[in-house]
């Protein structure tokens, strides 16, 4: 991934999070907690489970469509980070050679089952996490974390990081461009030059932090970052949370897919 696309990606997610839809209006705390519960439920399935995982796609699909998030964007990002899970998972078909019976005379090795299961879990967890941030502004997530009793210092650290991320990334973009223009092929990309670049960037960052500190002092900073915005749990939030919990419960403990499959088989076959 080139630098510009990475920069563009963060900016785009940030933009998406300022839309105004039902999902975006939900309380960040509720969204965060429901998403975490969703993730835990998904990974709590055994490593050979496939069918029971399918209904869980409902949640990311609802977030995506109700939140008006472009499908291709999320798909691309999911594919982009897939190598590690795929790399570790691909050993399963090679190492777990037990045979599982599926249709009449049609068998598949157990390793493939667990590999497919890993891929499904991977898609579910990654897309849901991305959709959480695409439908909730990062400051919103931070305030949710604060209200969930994470230390104030850590939360303000997150907010600061997010605020200056864009600034420093733009600065870095200029540095990288300058390096690329002055170097042809692989010249100028070795570690010695990298160290110089990183060192310069570091010093500039420190100096910037000092200026920021003085600016904040002159505006009355006393080590805390109060917020004016107050979040309130509304009826929409309660509705969202309760229906999400009910669905998670049903999908986790009742083999909905299987029952449906049997029912359809019974009717048509």
């Amino acid at each position, binding site marked *: 991934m080139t630098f510009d696309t990475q920069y563009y990606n*963060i900016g785009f997610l940030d933009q998406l999070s300022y839309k105004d839809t039902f999902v975006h209006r939900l309380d960040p705390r509720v969204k965060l907690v429901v998403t975490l519960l969703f993730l835990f439920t998904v990974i709590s399935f*055994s490593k050979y489970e496939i069918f029971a995982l399918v209904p869980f796609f409902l949640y990311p699909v609802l977030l995506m*469509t109700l939140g008006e998030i472009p499908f291709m964007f999320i798909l691309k990002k999911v594919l982009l980070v897939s190598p590690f899970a795929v790399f*570790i998972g691909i050993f399963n078909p090679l190492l777990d050679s037990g045979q599982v019976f599926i249709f009449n005379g049609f068998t598949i090795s157990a390793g493939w089952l667990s590999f497919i299961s890993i891929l499904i879990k991977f898609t579910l*967890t990654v897309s849901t996490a991305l959709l959480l941030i695409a439908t909730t502004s990062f400051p919103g997530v931070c305030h949710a974390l604060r209200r969930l009793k994470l230390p104030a210092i850590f939360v303000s650290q997150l907010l600061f990081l997010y605020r200056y*991320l864009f600034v420093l990334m733009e600065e870095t973009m200029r*540095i990288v461009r300058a390096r690329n223009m002055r170097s042809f092929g692989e010249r100028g990309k070795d*570690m010695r030059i*990298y160290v110089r670049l990183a060192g310069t960037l570091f010093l500039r960052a*420190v100096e910037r932090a000092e200026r920021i500190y003085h600016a904040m002092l002159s505006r009355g900073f006393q080590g805390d970052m109060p917020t004016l915005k107050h979040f309130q749990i509304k009826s929409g939030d309660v509705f969202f949370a309760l229906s999400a919990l009910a669905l998670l419960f049903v999908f986790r403990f009742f083999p909905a897919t299987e029952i449906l499959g049997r029912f359809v088989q019974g009717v048509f076959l």
Partner: protein
Amino acid sequence: MHMADALLSPAVGATMWAGSVAAIGYSSAKLKKHIDNKTIPLMGVMGAFIFAAQMINFTIPGTGSSGHIGGGMILAVMLGPYAAFLTIASVLSVQSLFFADGGLLALGCNIWNLGVYPCFLAYPLIYRPIAGDATSARRISIAAVLSTIIALQLGAFSVVLETLFSGISELSFGAFLLLMQPIHLAIGLAEGMITVGVILYVKQARPEILEANIVSRPLNAGISIKNVLAAFVILAVITGGALSWFASTNPDGLEWSIEKITGQGELAEQTSGIATSLKNIQGKTAFLPDYGFKPAADEENTEEATPSWPGIEAGTSVAGVVGASIVMMFIMIIGFGIRLFKKR
């Protein structure tokens, strides 16, 4: 070496989250006591710096491939362990949210693997004793390279352990170890050299930055860090124990990895005993147990060396495929429906 959600079991994920949140809480409390307000914006900008520095790639000598830094040790040296740990944790949080690097559940693992080791082990126990008062460039170099390599090795080892205890991957302990450790030795060496370079560069240009850190954090900080680590270990064990009932919901988790690690020979009989009895329990407690065409599948399964087969039986799988396709269709129809409705 970011952990991924899909390779985690809930018990491991929750345990590592508990450990990491405890470390965040502890570091915050420590910082609150000793901090001058100046450090707060500095930490934030340093986090952004790490982010930016990771985006410049460089060629790793001898391989031709390009890499980027993690930056844990640079932060620990520049900011001191507590501020550095919070900064790393914040960087990883943003990465997991915006790049889906790892994932939200694996974030606990990643903060632990990439934050705790450099800040609370490598920095106080390796870097500080060797680098001393940070006047000699040679000692700084040795200290930085060594501590970076060891921190990364510990991190990579943790990834192996976390994956094994989750029991999702089939890789054996030894094979996984061989995959992970040598790669991270090379990465650690490159990162160590860069860490040295940056530290020496800063020392040359703005020596007061390094000195300020050394003066403001006296050496006796090391003692309390040991206590903290002990507390973390105890906490992790307790939470792990409390959450281990999760493991019983998927019998292939812990037993499986124990079996792999100890070698099938010694425990083979025992594990198959546990697994079969668990399977029986599962058979009894399963919702609508008579929904599977059991006999044929069961006979096959008992012959397998891998004893645990939750959920997959011949009878259920046909229904599963049919049901899954229908559910998927439903979800897609709902999705397209909402899209169309919204467009109008």
